């Protein structure tokens, strides 16, 4: 009895300690939030009628934000942390009855995902009609798949070979402009220009890769960033060829191997051929399957290459370059192939992008794109195709879905535009996910060969490369 009393007293003490602590932390958080926001939120610079800057005061908003920070921190310390702690303890205390069998969903994740991807347009068309489906297929399906392909391409360079590339978007741009220029100038077909764009990008990969082979780590990162910027600046300034910032428009659409096209005016327009109602959605669905197949090609090649000597050499290079050299591996060639093959997929994605948009401008190839692609690779778990696909879906889909959240206008008033917060949330999400899972969604690595049993390699052992 007495023991119980002291026990509960102790618990009560602990609880009050936690609360005191939480209140203090909450106050600190409020104070810091006040300091952070007082100028930038509390005072807004606005232009008046005479085009002069004036200060608009928003103390109410500031108060709300400070309050959110304080209360949020308080709740986190007072409730969330003890809860997490309790769960962890419960988990640790629970008898270890982890079955070796993974759940059905986990085991068949790839198959299920693949089936879903193939059925996606059908499902969307069935649920939201022909016109209603356009947005979903284009903004979500195609958009996400482009990023998946880009991230898978970059994964070869960063995830497998461990070469930090901050200028990957340059190859995307090369592919896009290759198709845009040659397609508009000579009217060549997409099916010819797709491999051409890939080859062109691969060539640029080698050209840019060659001088930077000696560089390692952050020096490599900055030089690749510089190359990315150089290519963008050249696209902006070489107006005679690239038309500068205005970009190139009127890029021809892709045809279905010439059998039928997606231009309403053409005699073999798909609606005419199949005698179905005219709609822009056919082209989108076609593009969706096209990018899906391109993604699968990327995945297939990547998986295949990993089981080949060159793929193993990439990973070995990531783990230890000096050891690689001691084993007779030509690291220069190995790095260049990684650059070239990664760039090639970037080029494919670029030419697809040009075909899909019908318009390219340097605006689409800013550093932010490189950063986003790299973020997807790292968030997904370097080297893991599944993880990267998940990361692309979460990050790109998550921010795209903000556009759809018109109901927020009801909460924040009609002038509220959720899209504005897209990149802000994207940036914050990058931070949160990374702090939560520093090794990305899928941290483990699949071995490429095994003697008895395929066991995933824990991320604790894999390295991230130094060059």
């Amino acid at each position: 009895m007495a023991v119980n009393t002291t026990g509960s007293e102790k618990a009560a003490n602990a609880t009050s300690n936690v609360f005191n602590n939480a209140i203090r932390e909450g106050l600190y958080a409020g104070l810091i939030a006040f300091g952070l926001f007082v100028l930038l939120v509390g005072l807004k610079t606005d232009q008046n009628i005479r085009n002069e800057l004036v200060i608009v005061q928003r103390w109410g908003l500031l108060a709300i934000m400070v309050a959110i920070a304080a209360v949020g921190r308080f709740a986190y310390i007072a409730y969330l942390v003890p809860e997490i702690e309790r769960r962890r303890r419960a988990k640790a205390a629970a008898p270890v009855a982890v079955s070796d069998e993974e759940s059905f969903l986990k085991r068949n994740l790839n198959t299920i995902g693949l089936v879903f991807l193939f059925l996606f347009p059908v499902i969307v068309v069935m649920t939201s009609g022909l016109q209603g489906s356009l947005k979903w297929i284009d903004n979500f399906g195609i958009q996400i798949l482009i990023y998946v392909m880009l991230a898978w391409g970059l994964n070869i360079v960063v995830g497998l070979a461990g070469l930090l590339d901050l200028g990957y978007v340059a190859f995307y741009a090369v592919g896009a402009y290759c198709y845009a220029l040659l397609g508009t100038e000579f009217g060549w077909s997409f099916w010819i220009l797709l491999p051409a764009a890939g080859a062109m990008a691969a060539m640029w990969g080698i050209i840019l890769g060659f001088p930077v082979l000696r560089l390692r780590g952050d020096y490599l990162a900055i030089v690749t960033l510089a190359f990315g910027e150089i290519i963008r600046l050249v696209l902006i300034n070489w107006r005679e060829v690239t038309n500068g910032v205005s970009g190139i428009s009127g890029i021809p659409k892709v045809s279905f191997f010439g059998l039928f096209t997606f231009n309403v005016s053409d005699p073999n327009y798909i609606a005419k051929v199949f005698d179905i109602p005219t709609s822009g959605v056919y082209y989108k669905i076609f593009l969706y399957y096209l990018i899906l197949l391109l993604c699968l090609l990327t995945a297939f090649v990547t998986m295949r290459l990993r089981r080949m000597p060159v793929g193993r050499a990439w990973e070995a290079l990531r783990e230890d370059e000096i050891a690689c050299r001691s084993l007779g591996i030509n690291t220069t060639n190995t790095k260049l192939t990684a650059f070239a093959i990664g760039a090639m997929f970037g080029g494919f994605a670029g030419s697809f992008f040009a075909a899909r948009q019908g318009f390219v401008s340097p605006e689409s190839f800013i550093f932010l794109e490189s950063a986003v692609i790299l973020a997807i690779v790292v968030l997904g778990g370097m080297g893991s195709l599944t993880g990267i696909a998940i990361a692309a879906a979460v990050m790109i889909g998550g921010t795209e879905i903000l556009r759809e959240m018109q109901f927020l206008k009801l909460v924040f008033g009609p002038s509220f535009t959720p899209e504005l917060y897209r990149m802000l949330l994207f940036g914050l999400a990058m931070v949160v996910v990374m702090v939560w899972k520093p090794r990305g969604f899928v941290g483990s690595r699949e071995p490429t060969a095994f003697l008895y049993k395929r066991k995933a390699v824990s991320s604790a052992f894999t390295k991230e490369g130094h060059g």
Partner: protein
Amino acid sequence: MDEAAHSMNDPILKVEHLSMKFGGLVAIGDLSFEARRGEITALIGPNGAGKTTVFNCITGFYKPSEGMITLTRKGGEQLLLERMPDFRITAKAKVARTFQNIRLFSGMTVLENLLVAQHNKLMLASGFTVLGLLGLGTYKAASAESIELAKFWLEKANLVDRADDPAGDLSYGAQRRLEIARAMCTEPELLCLDEPAAGLNPRESAALNLMLNDIKENSGASILLIEHDMSVVMQISDHVVVLEYGRKISDGDPISVKADPRVIAAYLGVDDEEVEEVLVEVGDEQVIEQLDAEPDRAHGPSDSSSMMAGSVSDTISHSDDYGERITVSRSASKADQVDRRAAKAASTPPVTAEPVKVAKAPGKAKTVKPAASAKPATNVSRPTAAEKTRPATKAAPAYGLTGTVTSGKPAPAAKSGKAAAAKPSVAQAAPAKPKASAKPAAAKSVAGKPAAAKPAAPKAAAAKPKADAKKPAAAKKAPALSNTLKAPRGGKADRLILIKGIGPVNEKKLNQHGIYHFDQIAAWKKADIEAAEAYLAFDGRIEREDWMRQAKELAKQGATKPAAAKRGGRK
């Protein structure tokens, strides 16, 4: 036996005049050595001697500043490694290496590590990826074959159960073995191992020895290894090259190298006083004196001092004075100090040294008095001018011993104890060194009088009770040699070092004992052997190496052949 060995002992690797400079620092200076096919060649030396740099030059990680590294393939093709990029050295010249700090692909499985090592072969089989990607060509078969080879080496390395675990998950010893297995998967002709036994426990170390011997016997790969663990070096290597400060100080079979005073000095990384002790034991005052004049403060004892400690008291035998050596900075190299000692000893009459010695003694040790007081007595009672002309007579402890032997008195047994004790004292040098008493004792004995040594004896006894306790017994057990001479016949001694097992140090000692000629040794009887062994602190070696037979032969030839001839016959 020599002929048989020669047939396959053509050099696989020839390093000639190799120099490597980093800025102003000379890491390797004009180094030449050979590694013979089918042998295990060990490269040893104190920390910072440049061993790993030599490796990096051989394997192409560094481009040497000067020199030539020639590798001869099995087919007789000769490749100049210093002109090849590192990966080509492995691919074309078939030189594989491991690293001092294990460099595995820790995030890849053990099996994958071994497959990466077969990169070039598989690259070819996969048609440089293109055919393999399309599923054409022989890649599938080659891939299965490479897994078989990996499995073979996994079995050798006793890692086959761990094949599918990440390499980073293995224990340290297993990682070492895996690194060797991985190097072997490149199918090398020369395997370079950088401290393969570092950090291994004795059992793992023994397993490693077996593995290396097995590689040598069965895979046709020759091995070049850097090692600190002397048990590994002595047990498995056929040939040892010793480096110090980037120069070669010794080269030969493990036993001879182990006994080379320069190696001992270099390896013990002795302090000045300790060098002195070594020298006292070896017997030379000029160097001691010189050391005092030029103290070497810059170089403390190296941390590997323990490694050869056992061998010093154990055996002093042949050393190779004819190897090339280049002086680094004066007083830096311990081996050099020994060399300079030898050179000085040959040129300077010892008589002149004595006053200097006395003058210097006060500055050196606090216990000046006994030495000084001993001095006059020395002069009076020292009659053996003949002995003095010989550098050998300078071995102070041996002097004490000579006294014992010639007089046959039991009293100086304590002194002979001291003399013998000087040898173990090198091993114990670190603990014994601070004791001033050890030094004056040495100084006195250098002065060389039995009388002088007497006052010192109690002190020495106090300093090293253990040695003392042991030695009188040894002295009692070992009677005097039967056929000693006061001076060599005709004033000219035979070159005893021509006998395998006798080095210059022991030659001097034997001379001090009154042994100058081959026929004297040839005439030794069992008792004499025992006596000699006691003085030289050898146990059973004289018999084992059959000095008498050697001596008989040499006496018959009656000539002092150039030592080089004998050297060729060694090994």
